[in-house]
């Protein structure tokens, strides 16, 4: 069973936001951004822009009829700058013109006067100055302070991980239409239709019922369109609301890269203690999260960093503290893994540091400390149906860990200018929104009188195959062909108050609601069949569109049954509500049961470094992954492969660079590189672990969106291993991404010193 959408994708028939046929009278919007990262907005002169050809309006904060505020968790983010600017690229004004070219041309005619204020780009500097988005949080179990004395070995250090640009190939955008009711209807490229609706309603001073948001599909999201699709939706809506004309706003690539936030860079301090047997006794970690200029989702991202601070390991004494630091960069936001990868990178660094110092392979320490059934996480949830050791041991035997290791050593002994490196990366990732109330959704299922079925849920299709999975759940539950089923657009008027498609939980939540609705409809139809055809309800079922009574075909089938039910006035529509059971979490003590379940897996990574040039290849990524009972292996494998390669990108070539003025240097696809086909691992094996799945997973098929990203972390440590095979003496910092530059400089640490004078005596070249 294939993903449904690709049939249309390959023919170019799938409609994305920019493909929607343009309505007559449409105005095109372009955003005027702050040219400075921090300052007081003294004046804004757009008179010349207003006089430019085709320009209809220029809107500023003063034009907002409702509340100029789109902050989701903290109300700290104006839609259009008012009084202050806090980051370069912050929207200041909106130009509306008859053509896109005219709107962009007019941007150049706007002038702004800003009194500059000091710019902070470093989270530690922000923390030192008390610039925090929210108060710091600490997750604590045991007593790490007291435990140090009992440790045989203690190591400490610093680990840094960089940002990551989402680089969905479809840029952000929205297309808004005024309605006859005085509200706005819009098509938005968002993972969170309800968020766009809610904030737009606030901005326009309307009830949420006056704002309709419709989403067909996204050309990629990865978290970048969870919260950050909102400004563009709200701006387009503001334009449509004020001008009473359709307004289309699509960011070009460089504007998208400049104006939107990315994965949070982290700088972290760690301290780890072991007993004589290399069991982890205590772990203390302090995370400095670079949140950017506004909260966005940073507090929630920070929280998940704390949840995943110990990755797949059991640590009895943990003190993990996180600071969400306000800097003058675009607000950083959700990105696949949502803070989890940043947390895991630090404990993996801590283990690597210990292993390097002790001269033992890191994988020996890792294996000894894996979670076991019943082990407590720092937040007091117990690992239940834990497959950490199973995943590790399966990967080790399936892919021959010992053999790979021996091969690597052999290779390194016989090659001078090429070195191989190896690392193991276990993962453990919690499934659910950690904000418990968000774990709810609804499905609206219509059976039409001809037997075809339309399903609406809160799920947004962005390539993860959720629509296909929902259709499969419905087909299975109703006992009919998937070809009868259509998954409708995601629309706030059909399914309201939804959570964004995020947290890997979309298929679970919306699938469960769909399953409930379809089960109710099935029961209703069978009750009808019982009466209509005088059948015994017990043993009555629909299978392959046949109605079976105790296994014997009845004198009706799906189409006839539906038709007869309609004429007997049986309700053929069902609206089901699903809320994940048993979730609770007390954020005041940071304890509870926040996750429906955890996903486990282990990846082996082998790399080769060209020690002459500092370049490298990922030779193999071999994964044993806990899918539970996958009911769509093509989709699930695709999520693993895609997620892992995205993680490799984060750890290798993807380098988000800002200068001290808060200006994005990696501002286009030519200066920010994501993996291409040659950068993908030569070998990428995915082994489906034999696990029972979890009852809270849809049809026992576990959530698969985010966990694989963290397999990519192994690439960093494998590269480090290879560098150390060439240059064992380098004091290598823990700093990701491991770009070819960092590799080469690590391979030849003496060069910079010998060359320093030469570089610095050169005249500046302007």
């Amino acid at each position: 069973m294939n993903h449904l959408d690709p049939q249309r994708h390959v023919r170019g028939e799938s409609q994305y936001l920019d493909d929607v046929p343009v309505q007559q009278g449409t105005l095109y919007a372009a955003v005027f951004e702050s040219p400075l990262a921090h300052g007081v907005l003294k004046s804004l002169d757009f008179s010349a822009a207003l006089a430019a050809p085709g320009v209809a309006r220029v809107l500023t904060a003063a034009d907002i009829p409702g509340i100029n505020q789109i902050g989701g968790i903290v109300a700290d983010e104006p839609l259009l700058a008012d009084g202050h600017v806090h980051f370069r690229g912050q929207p200041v004004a909106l130009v509306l013109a008859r053509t896109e070219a005219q709107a962009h041309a007019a941007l150049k005619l706007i002038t702004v006067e800003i009194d500059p204020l000091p710019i902070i780009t470093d989270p530690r500097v922000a923390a030192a100055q008390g610039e925090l988005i929210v108060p710091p949080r600490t997750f604590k179990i045991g007593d790490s302070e007291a435990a140090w004395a009992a440790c045989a070995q203690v190591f400490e250090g610093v680990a840094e991980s960089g940002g990551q640009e989402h680089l969905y190939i479809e840029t952000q955008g929205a297309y808004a239409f005024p309605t006859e009711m005085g509200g706005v209807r819009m098509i938005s490229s968002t993972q969170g239709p309800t968020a766009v609706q809610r904030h737009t309603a606030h901005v326009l001073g309307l009830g949420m019922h006056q704002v309709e948001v419709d989403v067909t599909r996204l050309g990629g999201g990865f978290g970048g369109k969870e919260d950050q699709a909102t400004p563009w939706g709200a701006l387009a809506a503001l334009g449509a609301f004020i001008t009473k004309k359709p307004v289309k706003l699509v960011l070009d690539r460089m504007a998208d890269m400049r104006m939107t936030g990315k994965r949070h860079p982290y700088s972290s301090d760690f301290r780890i203690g072991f007993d004589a047997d290399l069991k982890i006794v205590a772990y203390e970690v302090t995370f400095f999260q670079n949140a950017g200029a506004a909260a966005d989702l940073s507090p929630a991202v920070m929280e998940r960093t704390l949840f995943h601070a110990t990755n797949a390991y059991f640590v009895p004494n943990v003190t993990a503290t996180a600071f969400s630091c306000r800097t003058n960069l675009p607000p950083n936001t959700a990105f696949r893994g949502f803070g989890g990868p940043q947390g895991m990178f630090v404990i993996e660094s801590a283990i690597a540091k210990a292993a390097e110092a002790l001269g033992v392979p890191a994988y020996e320490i890792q294996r000894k400390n894996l979670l076991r059934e019943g082990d407590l996480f720092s937040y007091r949830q117990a690992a239940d149906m834990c497959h950490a050791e199973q995943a590790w041991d399966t990967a080790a035997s399936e892919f021959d860990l010992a053999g790979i290791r021996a091969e690597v050593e052999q290779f390194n002994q016989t090659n001078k200018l090429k070195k191989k490196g190896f690392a193991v990366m276990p993962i453990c990732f919690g499934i659910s929104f950690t904000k418990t109330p968000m774990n709810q959704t609804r499905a609206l299922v219509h059976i039409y009188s001809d037997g075809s079925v339309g399903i609406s849920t809160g799920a947004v299709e962005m390539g993860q195959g959720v629509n296909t999975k929902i259709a499969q759940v419905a087909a299975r539950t109703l006992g009919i062909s998937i070809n009868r089923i259509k998954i409708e657009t995601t629309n706030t008027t059909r399914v309201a108050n939804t959570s964004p498609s995020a947290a890997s939980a979309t298929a679970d939540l919306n699938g469960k609601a769909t399953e409930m609705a379809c089960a109710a409809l099935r029961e209703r139809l069978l009750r009808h069949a019982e009466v209509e055809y005088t059948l015994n309800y017990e043993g009555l079922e629909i299978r392959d569109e046949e109605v079976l009574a105790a296994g014997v075909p009845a004198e009706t089938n799906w189409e006839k049954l539906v038709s007869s039910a309609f004429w007997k006035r049986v309700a053929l529509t069902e609206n089901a509500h699903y809320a994940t059971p048993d979730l609770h979490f007390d954020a005041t003590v940071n304890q509870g049961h926040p996750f429906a379940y955890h996903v486990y897996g282990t990846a082996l990574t082998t790399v080769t470094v060209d020690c002459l040039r500092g370049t490298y290849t990922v030779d193999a990524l071999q994964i044993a992954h806990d899918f539970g009972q996958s009911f769509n292996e093509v989709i699930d494998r695709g999520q693993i492969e895609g997620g892992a390669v995205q993680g490799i990108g984060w750890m290798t070539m993807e380098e988000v660079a800002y200068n001290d003025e808060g200006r994005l240097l990696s501002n286009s696809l030519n200066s920010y590189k994501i993996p291409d086909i040659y950068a993908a691992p030569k070998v990428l094996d995915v082994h489906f672990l034999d696990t029972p799945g979890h009852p809270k997973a849809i049809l026992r098929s576990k959530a698969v969106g985010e966990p694989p990203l963290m397999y990519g972390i192994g690439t960093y440590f494998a590269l480090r291993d290879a560098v150390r095979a060439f240059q064992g003496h380098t004091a290598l910092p823990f700093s990701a991404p491991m770009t070819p530059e960092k590799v080469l400089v690590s391979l030849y640490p003496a060069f910079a010193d010998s060359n320093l004078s030469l570089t610095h005596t050169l005249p500046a070249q302007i």
Partner: protein
Amino acid sequence: MIEFYLNDQPIRTSEAPASTLLDFVRYHEQLKGTKIGCREGDCGACTVLVGELNADGQTVNYQSMTSCLTPLGNAHGKHIVTVEGINAAGNQLTPVQKAIVDEGGSQCGFCTVGFVMSLTGHSLSTQPATEKSTIAAIDGNICRCTGYKSLERAAAKLTAELEQRPAEKALAWLSEKQFVPGYFAEIPAKLAQLRLGGSREAARTADAAKAASHVSTSPNGHAQSQNDHDHQDGSKPFTHAILGGGTDLLVQRLEELREQPGVRLVFDQPGRRGIRQATTGRVVLGAATTASQLLESELMRGLLPNLPQYLKLVSSTPIRNMGTVAGNFINGSPIGDLTIMFLALGAFVTLQDGNGQTRELALPDLYLGYKKLAKAADEQVIEISFPAPLAGDFFHFEKVSKRTHLDIASVNSAAWLRVKNDVIQAAAISAGGVGPVPLYLARTSEFLIGRELTAETVSAANAVMQAEISPISDVRGTADYKRLLLRQLLWAHFLQFAPELAVDELT
């Protein structure tokens, strides 16, 4: 008037020749299958096929190009194919489309059409399909969802199918197998017809074109950079631009170019293509020679056997199909890959001014400063030439970038050496990314001459070289890194030539 075929439809348009083919197909013709990802040729979401009638007048050569960087004027006389032009009736999938669907090679779908078009172009190629060549066909297509493995599986499936493709009457076979619709068979005749009409029009407009003043080409960047594509705004306006493949100017200056009436397109100018060896022994390239044509040239491959591996490091298939050698020179990027190669080959450019006067200039002498050229405003490159390397000469090109393929170099370098009895008789070393212009390292090259081929010579040459370069820190690396990297690349040249050289001093 620009005339061409778009899928099965004839097009006559007076839209600006320097506007993009992408905007034309999406917003003028409302063919929305072609997507916009980056508008700088770096993602491949907008890939289309550009078919050009072969000299035989019977067949069409199809190449993939990114429509975001294709000047609409370059479509003139050609067959432009978008996904709508290959879709079969009745929702049937072509073998390319089916392979991608079956292998799960499409997730969000936004990049997918680009892959479909690149692979369809590969199917139409006259070269045999191999595992490598099929992957190479999609080297300009970026996908953020799949991690590419499913696309590799689809490519493998396709390669197997294409093994059955006959060498003769391939189009008929492709049509029968539904790779392309039946109307493709009629395209050669239609393009031939266009060509006839076109030559009449050309005669009419030739005089007008002559009268137009052809001024400069290279935008003058105002900020120093040693890497290309800085997207600078606000530098001097330029009039009457000359467009080659468009792969640089359409990134940097699209808005201005679109507004300009007098843009000259040299891509299809008669007499500007072709690679030949002159009687003098020199190799002569027409200025509109593309990187792909370099690659296809038996002459070039004979002289530089490793050229395919070097060119694989230069941009991507669709960009190589468009980007011209002269365009790379004139763009003046300090990091231009082809420029660096030709500097070490001892290339000259022939410039022609508005009155038809020509002069020859050694390539190093073309560069006065960052994006400043020793070229009068009305001069245009018409030819490039270099002395053919002798048998036994050594030539090598090295490039390191953040991503190995489809990326701009942090540092690149080329070396040409003539060695007799372990003594270097002649040398030419070039390096990019380590100064304001693409550098011919005259002092380093000079230093090498007469010296023995030893590790000490390389080390000493490095010392000379380090004093000859002036890298700055930017998004592609710190100055220190670039210095170290160039040292390594110098070693890489010599190790390639003489693998026995000791490398202990490297550590």
